[in-house]
């Protein structure tokens, strides 16, 4: 569990950490869009330098970003290899039946590889520098206009925030139940597939039962504290858009301009 980097927050106080989560979330999506504007090595170099600059500014160890790529490496290599073997054009280095290795293929393979890595770096930057709670606030804020269509925005945000709050509690509980069943002779993760499946039942049932009990307790506690749904509630947490956030948007605008110019 601890090897998973994606979705993990590294506390800090850098410029990137302090940015408004709404801005960060939207700009991360925007970045995925503008990366498709890049079509030559100059534009990829520009995007690469821009991403590295952002990574550097976050003052988070580069190792965390590289580890973020690791779980997806097979998907990336598979896509890159397909690209290389099936693209024709330019100098032909090798061919066998429908498979070729051409100049264009290699270049496109390189571009695709860059595209994956940059997108992963950017989204990892978002999750490493934004506490999950702020992300859920950002989602709530961004979804607010959809209230018109009776989307229960407030309830969705509360659900996300309670779910996030219970993640460590449930991980703790999972470990406790696993230990208890191990002490009763269960072998997790060994034996045939059907044995593995069977071993998981004594873990899942208590986990479900306990979670339902927790949910019931929590609902009672919330009611006792006056929770009657989203109507008429005020918010303790507010997000404020600052100059630095406008600056970040401006930086992205400049990059977009440069990319168009480089085409």
């Amino acid at each position, binding site marked *: 569990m*601890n090897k998973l980097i994606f979705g993990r927050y590294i506390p800090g106080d850098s410029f990137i950490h302090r940015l408004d989560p709404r801005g960060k979330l939207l700009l991360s999506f925007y970045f995925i869009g503008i990366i498709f504007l890049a079509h030559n090595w100059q534009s990829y170099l520009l995007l690469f330098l821009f991403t590295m600059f952002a990574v550097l500014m976050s003052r988070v160890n580069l190792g965390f970003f590289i580890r973020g790529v690791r779980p997806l490496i097979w998907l990336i290599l598979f896509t890159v290899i397909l690209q290389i073997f099936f693209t024709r054009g330019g100098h032909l280095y090798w061919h066998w039946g429908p498979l070729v290795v051409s100049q264009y293929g290699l270049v496109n393979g390189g571009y695709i590889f860059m595209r994956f890595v940059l997108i992963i770096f950017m989204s990892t930057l978002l999750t490493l520098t934004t506490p999950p709670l702020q992300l859920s606030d950002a989602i709530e804020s961004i979804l607010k206009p959809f209230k018109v269509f009776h989307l229960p925005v407030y309830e969705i945000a509360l659900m996300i925030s309670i779910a996030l709050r219970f993640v460590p509690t449930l991980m703790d*509980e999972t470990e*406790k*139940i696993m*230990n*208890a*069943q*191990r*002490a*009763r*002779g*269960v*072998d997790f993760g*060994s034996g045939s597939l059907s044995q593995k499946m069977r071993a998981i*039942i*004594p873990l899942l*049932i*208590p986990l479900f*039962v*306990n979670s339902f009990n927790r949910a019931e307790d929590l609902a009672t506690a919330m009611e006792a504290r006056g929770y009657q749904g989203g109507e008429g509630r005020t918010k303790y947490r507010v997000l404020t858009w600052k100059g630095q956030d406008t600056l970040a948007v401006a930086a992205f605008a400049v990059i977009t301009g440069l990319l168009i110019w480089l085409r």
Partner: protein
Amino acid sequence: MDITFKDVAFTYQAGSPFASDALTDINLTIHDQAFTAIIGHTGSGKSTLVQHLNALLKPSAGTVTIGERVITPETDNKNLKPIRQKVGMVFQFPENQLFEETVAKDIAFGPMNFGVSEADALQRATEMVQLVGLDTQYLERSPFDLSGGQMRRVAIAGVLAMKPEVLILDEPTAGLDPVGRREILGMVERLHREQHLTVVLITHLMEDVAAYADQVVVMDRGQVAKTGTPQAVFQDVAWLQSHQLGVPETALFAEKLKQRGFQFEQLPLTEAALAAALAPQLPLTKRGATDE
């Protein structure tokens, strides 16, 4: 079966940025057939320590010898099952581990994992459910329909059904009412006395330590701060209090009486011991039951 710790250290998430030392320099023997109490405030390493007793955790350094088996940092995770059968472990709030459709099946689950036939395991369930003070009519009930205290007994029966030689209990009475507390501890004491089970009890209740334990292990910041008989460990009231540890009420009260002028050769730890020590210093109007 003795369990011996030699120079044991343990680190959680070793080698990651989140590594934290939980145990250092542990040298300790849990003697066969003894009743050992482990005390220490929350976070002192008690639970981490006991998870080494049945190889749920392996030491990061040093060795743990469990009967014939020696556990080192290099020990393979396979073939640890025989240890877990011999060393039964009742975790905190063990009712959270119940999962079967019926009480009988849940109690039989442990023994069956260790190769006991279904018929024998169900036979054991019948025995154990009575041993923990429940009627056999509960056997066919769903464990989830029982009260919290009853669920806890079923969970303990599930561990006892494995017929362990060593029984570890991590705060088995937490959250129970006084009747439930008395019954569970009385049962543990009976198992220790009648079936010569080796018992290791983690607890915050010093009265229980004073009443039942032969040996006390005091944990503090991942180290063994003191070991000895309750009589020896509880003599130094000031030291215990400075380590945020409770002291049996009798010891505290006897300290108060000392300041008023009563005399004790040794600080008594139980009400009976205090009464016996006070008897010669009080005018007795009638002869005590013990003198007759």
